[in-house]
């Protein structure tokens, strides 16, 4: 009997939760704010779905509501991607300046 591909995706999902669990516990508490902004940025990988929605063709060549919703979702996700990674970079840059001589 063949295994449903859903089971494989579920396996990836469950294992990723465990990876996330261990990786996040090792994040130093002083970097919890950058952690939130970077998780924000990476969860915007949902843009992948938005691009598919935006580019989905239809027979008469015009735009469907589905396309337009895709475009909007692309913009929203892009705000997050650029905003999230850049603001994280900006924050982490500040942590760079460490150990001054006393």
């Amino acid at each position: 009997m063949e295994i449903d591909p859903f089971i494989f995706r579920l396996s990836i999902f469950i294992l990723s939760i465990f990876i996330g669990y261990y990786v996040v516990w090792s994040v130093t508490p002083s970097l919890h704010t950058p952690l939130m902004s970077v998780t924000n940025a990476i969860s915007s990988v949902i843009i992948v779905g938005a691009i598919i929605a935006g580019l989905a063709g239809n027979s008469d060549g015009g735009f469907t509501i589905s396309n337009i919703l895709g475009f909007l979702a692309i913009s929203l996700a892009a705000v997050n991607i650029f905003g999230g990674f850049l603001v994280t970079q900006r924050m982490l840059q500040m942590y760079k300046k460490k150990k001054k001589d006393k």
Partner: protein
Amino acid sequence: MSANLSAIFYLISGVLFILALRGLSSPETSRKGNLFGILGMTIAITVTFLSIGTFSNGLIYVLIFLLIGGLIGAYIAYKIPMTAMPELVAGFHSLVGLSAVLVAISAFLNPEAFNLGSIGSIKLSSLIEMSIGAAVGAITFSGSIIAFLKLQGIMSGSPITFRGQHLLNALLLISIIVLTYLLCLTQSSNYFWILLAVSFLIGFLLIIPIGGADMPVVISMLNSYSGWAAAGIGFTLENSALIITGALVGSSGAILSYIMCKGMNRSFFNVILGGFGAAEQSTASGDKEHRPVKNGNAEDAAFLMKNASSVIIVPGYGMAVAQAQHALREMVDTLKKNDIKVTYAIHPVAGRMPGHMNVLLAEANVPYDEVFELEEINNDFANADVAFVIGANDVTNPAAKSDPQSPIYGMPVLDVEKCKSVLFVKRSLSPGYAGIDNDLFYKENTLMLFADAKKMTEEITKNL
């Protein structure tokens, strides 16, 4: 590009995202981690374009919208003051939620484009995944909007409660399950729209009863939700990058919520059910307030600190509100010139989001190796001469250790009272968010400095 090849690339992005989070285990590796994240995102987006192959006339629009969003995001990232990070993160969460909703609707309206079947006969599993993604996305969206409004001060930070609130929420949550079931049974789009509307409502109702100072938990929780929403959509789109990311973000937010709850010694449900603070207010404004306090000025504070050999700074949300972090650093610099040892003690729930104080201190160029977490530094208070509490209150309240009647009893607190003397920079004697009095104010060795945190710090520096 073949489906298998693109799936491999999505997997690579997923791994890069894991490395991005891994990098945050120390400030040295964190910037490289962020680059891994950017690389992962770039790969995911590029692969999506390549896998579609034949471009419809939509391509130009896709790029335009990508650019518009990117420019807005970049502008915000450069302009936002560090004190506004909690609002920014809440706002960003709402965008993730909304885009999940939009993608779900889009997939529902045009299932062929996503290989999910056709309108009226969408695959059952896809329909369930889509409903979960859309519902969680909608809850994330409206919840984050409320959190944003509360953090911005547009909406009052005090909890809004009404009779039957929990019952209503429970009923709405059950209705989500019923609606999903009906949707799968009939494939009727009406149920899908009602499902979305109910989810938006739940997000709204879930956050309004939660008070301003519980925001660290709320933000972490919404962070987690945005991850689960992304994972739900990932299942619908059969995209491993989205599934991995969703799981990572979901568990990350959940862990942060847990850490925040532990920092307040409250259960997650206790926070979510809300209403904390409102009920306690009445007991707080009792006669205790009339006890005498020692009122000091900047000169007294400067004198105390100048004669100390070690000072511990305890920052709180008040420092963020007054934007006093730079003034504070200048004061500390002056102290250090006088050979006084200065360290910073951060309580897990200080501020309005996890790590809020650390970012502000980093912004003010405070080296991160002078900043310590509660467990690391709590024993040092007994040996320190002066504790300088700036804009914090409840996290120093000894009642959490001594008074079982206190609403914050059991909460881990900073042992500020063990210092030889305590300086409290505060605008007034008003109780903190928990609505309880702080015995520390009336202690023999406590000096209250009633002023704006920034102005007071600047004046102390002048007097040093």
